[in-house]
């Protein structure tokens, strides 16, 4: 386990050094010794990381959640609509609180349906969540009236753009969420069962683990993480947008697999996912900083996913363990 994590750290270091050298030699500025850059990368990493920590549970359990791309947008739209409707009546604080609760509660619905489809009706996760991707996408656009929904809540906007002791508030919230999920995954029975289900569903069933219930909760957790990402997005961009998370589903899967999780389930950690999300953020922000055509980012992240999976497969073979054909 530490080996895959070390690999990810190493990759991050090489990436940062490479961009640093490029920036120094071409533009004579430092990439990493720059507060703005560090803060920007951290803020940049917030949404992909939030999606990715939920995705970590899903992938460890042997599944994948594609629907979070639009669950996030769905949350931004619901939050915006509710906050705009509730704030004038309840005041900014209470209005925001109600809107946050309503949007997170709404996110549990696609999560619950994903979980039931996969755990009860045995729909393959790829297909079940792809279907939900379409459903949530359509509903999010319908609720938004096909456009973006501006928000007028000063507290939400200050959460999205403010900072505490020089650290952006969205980063603090994300780190807190990450720590909670790290605890859940590494220290609780729920986390233990997530690994067990990914390792062997049969063994889990025969050990009396309620595989269906745990699976449903995993997908709800993933959807709620996407909801939190949506809330922070709404604060940062002061608007709800159905397409907010669309490009991020690839980033989230990339972060998880770069972080050492196997797409075949059974392994992965939140810390690994953090490194993976940082790698993705550095690739994206760094490529802008050193003035590479932005579309190369997609190419780079896609290639990194594929390489990570190949390395994972190779390591399984070399590791002396049994490879399931």
């Amino acid at each position, binding site marked *: 386990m530490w080996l895959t994590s070390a690999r990810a750290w190493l990759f991050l270091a090489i990436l940062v050094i490479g961009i640093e050298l490029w920036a120094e030699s071409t533009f004579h500025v430092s990439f990493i010794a720059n507060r703005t850059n560090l803060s920007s990368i951290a803020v940049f990493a917030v949404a992909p990381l939030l999606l990715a920590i939920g995705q970590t549970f899903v992938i460890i359990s042997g599944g994948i959640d594609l629907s979070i791309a639009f669950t996030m947008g769905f949350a931004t739209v619901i939050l915006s609509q509710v906050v705009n409707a509730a704030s004038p009546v309840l005041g900014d604080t209470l209005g925001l609180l109600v809107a946050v609760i309503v949007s997170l509660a709404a996110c549990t619905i696609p999560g619950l349906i994903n979980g039931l489809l996969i755990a009860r009706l045995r729909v393959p996760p790829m297909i079940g969540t792809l279907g939900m991707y379409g459903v949530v996408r359509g509903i999010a656009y319908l609720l938004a009236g096909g456009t973006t929904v501006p928000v007028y809540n000063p507290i939400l906007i200050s959460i999205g753009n403010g900072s505490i002791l020089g650290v952006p508030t969205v980063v603090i919230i994300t780190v807190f969420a990450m720590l909670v999920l790290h605890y859940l995954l590494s*220290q609780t029975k729920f986390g*233990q069962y997530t690994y*067990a289900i990914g390792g*062997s569903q049969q063994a*889990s069933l025969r050990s*009396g*683990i309620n595989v269906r219930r745990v699976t449903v909760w995993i997908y709800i957790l993933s959807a709620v993480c996407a909801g939190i990402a949506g809330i922070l997005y709404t604060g940062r961009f002061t608007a709800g947008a159905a397409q907010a998370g669309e490009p991020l589903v690839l980033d989230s899967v990339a972060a998880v697999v770069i972080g050492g999780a196997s797409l075949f389930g059974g392994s992965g950690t939140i810390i690994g996912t953090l490194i993976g999300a940082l790698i993705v953020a550095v690739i994206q922000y760094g490529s802008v900083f050193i003035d590479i055509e932005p579309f190369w980012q997609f190419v780079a992240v896609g290639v990194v996913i594929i390489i990570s999976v190949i390395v994972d497969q190779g390591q399984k073979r070399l590791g*002396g363990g*049994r490879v399931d054909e």
Partner: protein
Amino acid sequence: MSETAIRSAAETNAASTYLLEARGVSKRFGGVLALDKVDFRLAAGEVVALAGDNGAGKSTLIKIISGVFQASTGVLFFQGAPAHFDNPQTARDSGIETIYQDLALADNLDVGANVFLGREPVRRILGLPFVDRQRMRHEAAETLKTLDIELDRLDRPVRALSGGQRQCVAIGRALHWHARVLIMDEPTAALGVPEQRKVLALTRSLAQRGVGIIFISHNLQDIFSVSDRIVVLRRGALAGACNTAESKPDDIVKLMVGA
């Protein structure tokens, strides 16, 4: 043992004096009668081999005993009283453990986590529950030691263990949870010869501790070296039963194929 005597016992529904007893158990799947009024008895400390060809009903019978299936008709007695196992968990809670040839362990978890899978001990720190990994490893090591199983590293995924070691971990798990009845489904099927011997020796030593063991195997040599009695099923029905010491492999084969 006389079949008619058992049949009449089933009719009177008298209390069972055995550790485990199935009386007139049938199981129907749609139009297929997978198990037809089978009687089965197991005493504490006894190893009963369950033999039969593919489709003879061996796995249906053990799945009824372990709570995976429920009998269509017939009664199951456990420790003298009628027992109803709605699911594997209730059977396990009563002390009926099953060891499957390959599917018993989660490969990606370590020995301790596998021994405790589904029943992890939890300690609280500031009110928050934490799975107690150290205790799991420690207790797993203790249990394995009592079985003379030596594993150098308990903190590695069981994927890294050999087939025999994995089987030993599964047996250790059953022992740790005070199994009264242990069902072993082809426990030696995927093992090399030295490891087969180790598992057979473990089986005997568990029986000496008073565990009742149902031993399913295709391998007659294993059956003869480990069991006290042999029960043969054929096409879902009881084909015969005999004491191992008084029978020869040929007799069992005849019962299996119905010659």
